[in-house]
Structure formats: structure tokens, C-alpha cells
């Protein structure tokens, strides 16, 4: 599972930790996050995230 970075604010989605505050359980792949989810830092949608290639 890959990490994703918010292009607007730089917040990083790590699938290992998820985003529990918004109901995204640890272990959730970015692709499986619902489409109405928003960046917890700046409020943009999934479209504004880019995959981090390792």
C-alpha cells in the first residue's frame, strides 16, 4: 500500500495509520477511501493527492 501526499498542503496519508478522526481505519488503502473524504489539514478532496513512489 502506497503513501499519498496532499498537493495543496503537504499532509501525508499513510495507509498504516489511516485517518481515524475521519473514520478511515488503519490499514485502509488510499484507493479504498470514500470519494467524499477530505484532507484533514486543508479540506481538499482525493483528487488533489499524489502517490509517493518509493
Amino acid at each position, binding site marked *: 500500500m502506497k503513501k499519498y501526499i496532499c498537493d495543496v498542503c503537504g*499532509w501525508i496519508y499513510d495507509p498504516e495509520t489511516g485517518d481515524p478522526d475521519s473514520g478511515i481505519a488503519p490499514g485502509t488503502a488510499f484507493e479504498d477511501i470514500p470519494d467524499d473524504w477530505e484532507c484533514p489539514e486543508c479540506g481538499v478532496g482525493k483528487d488533489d493527492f499524489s502517490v509517493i513512489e518509493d
Partner: protein
Amino acid sequence: MNITLKEGIDWVGYIDWTVRDFHGYKTESGSTYNSYLIRDEKNAVIDAVKAPYVHKLVEHIEALTPLESIDYVVCNHAEPDHSGGLPGLMKACPNATLVCNEKCKVALEKHYDTSAWKWQVVEDGDTLSLGKRTLQFINTPMVHWPESMFSYVPEEKLLFSMDAFGQHYASAFRFDDEEPLDVILHEAKAYYANIVMLYGRPISQTMERAAELEIEMIAPSHGVIWRSHLKEVFAAYQKYVVCKPRPKVIVLYASMWKATEKMAEAILEGAQECGVEAQFFNVDSTHATRIVTEVLDCAAIAIGSPTLNNSLMPAMAGVLCYMSGLRPTNKAGFAFGSYGWSKRGGAAAVEEAMKEMKIDILRESIRSQYVPTEEILEECREAGRMLGKYAEQFAKD
């Protein structure tokens, strides 16, 4: 007025003594929009001012160097309090190239007619030589907008920090050691709480990067320039980024016929009995600007509203909307309020808003049908004592 930061580097901005409303922030002390001029083999202006005052900026530059001699205009932040003057400045300086990052360019193009501008787009870490001195650019997303960046002059150990470390504070002086320290630190705190409290995480990341630089002077885009008290403002920011609580209780309320006010007074009495610092704000008499400034470092908060039209008081709703957007952390408390017949309103709506803000709810809300009885007032006092003890303990941990 001394405007010289370093030899050949001067303040050329505008002191806005009369502004009292900065997009909702009640700027009781006015503000300044700081622009700076660096004269070297190449001349650069760092940031502009609000649009109506660009003629003053141009005047200040012209007093020091011909407008034709300006080679670069650096834009650290696209918000109109700093970029509004750019169209006028770029017109006045025919040989100037606008220097900014890609996100900033996109934002400026969505604000202004930039068709005649020459651009130089810079990336994080890029440098621009001015001759004896260099400008180094550091992206600082969300401090305060996505495109925000710092400009650093290593030869002078000087950081142009844009909104970070700023204060909405108009003054006849440009430097931190020319003003009482407690006053400017308070203004820096108010600025942090009202403008960037929600971006504690990116700000602490930015501070970590700044700590790697040698810095003798911080020139923000609002208020005084830090040259003698950098340590103090850095230490303050370190606390702000985590909303570090002091042993302090806030009782915040709205009232219609003084029933909720009586409850608020009883909660205050209880907290005061603990010997803890307790503050008391009615949303009708205290502006949201002051309220969130105080919320930043409180440990515990009781919030009350009576029931109006089956909901809470609109003035309280406005304050809670503002506060929740600013995302204070590390707070706990409870809700209270009076009602007539509908238990759905007042206290319930406040508690809902507090949960949404992730304020830890310490007890069930206290509700009074119409005027509070002595029994309810004693419950309020007891809850106030509990809040006071909690604040003392929590701030210690």
C-alpha cells in the same frame, strides 16, 4: 522612525493605523503591511502592501532608489494584504521581474491581470544572487496559504517570514526592542490564534526547518521586526503549535433573560474557589477575536447558551463556527444553558459543537428550565470546581 534592518535593507511598507476589521479579525491595534527593499548589485522588493496603499510603498521605495532600478519583486504570499499592491508596484517598476513559486504564480494569475509581468518561478531551496547577498527560498505550505514561502538572506542571517511571527499591531516603531515586549508578544499570540491556529502541524514543521538556519533577525509581513527577542517569540510559538494549556478556565456564554448568565456566574465562582485563573466572556460583549486568543492556551472551557427557536443563540453559533474552524486542541469542558420547553436547543447544540471540535466532554450538560434553582446553581458551582481542578491537573501533565 528607524527603518533600517541591515545596511542596504530597509522597511518600505505601510502602517495601517485605522484598520479595525481584518476579514473578521477585530484589529484593535491596527496593523502594518511590511515590505522591504534590498539594495545590492541587483535591487529587490520583498512583498507588497494592501492595494489602496501601494502609492505609499512606491513613495518609500523612490525615496531610496529610482523605480527603474528595481530588478526583482518577491512575492512570498498571494493573500491580498500583501499582493494587492503588486499590480501597481509592477507597473511602477518597469524593469522588475516577479519572483515566486509555482503555486503563488497560479494564485496571483487568478487574482490580477498579470499579462504584462515578467516572471521567475522558484522552487524550494532555490537561490537568487543579488550581488553581495543571496535570497534563498523555502516553501512553507499553509503558513499561511498553500503557496506561502520564506525568503532567507544567509549573509545577513535575516529571515523574511511573511505571516509567521507577525502581529496586527500598528506602531511608530519597526523593531521589537522599541516596544514593550509583553504587548507585542500578546499581539503575536492574538495573530497566531486568529489566523493560523488550525495549522499547528505545518507550522511546527516550518519551525524545525527554520531552526536549521542561522537567524539573527526575523522580518514578518505584519507588525514589528524581531531582532532582540527571537528566543521569546520562538518559545511562544513552540507552545502555540500544540495549543499548550495553562491552568486556566474559560466560561463562555450567551444569555437572553439572564438565566444562563446566572449559571455561568455560578460556574465561574466554582472555578475561582480552586484558585485557578478563570475568565468570563459573554459573546455579546466580547469579540470572537479576543475569545479565541484566550482559548488558545486554556485547559478547560464551559460553554453555555439558552434555547432560542429550538436552537442556540445565533451570536454563540457564530463564535462556535469561528472557533471550530481554527481547531483548538488540548481542551476539555462541558455545555450548559437554560430552556423553556424544548430540551433540544441551547445546551444540546453547544455540546454537539464541542464534540465536533474534539473538546473532551467532562460531564453531562447542565440544563435549567427557565430560571435556575439554588439546586441547579450549586450543581454549576460544583461543575466549576471540577473544571478548575481539571485545568490545574491537565496543565501540569
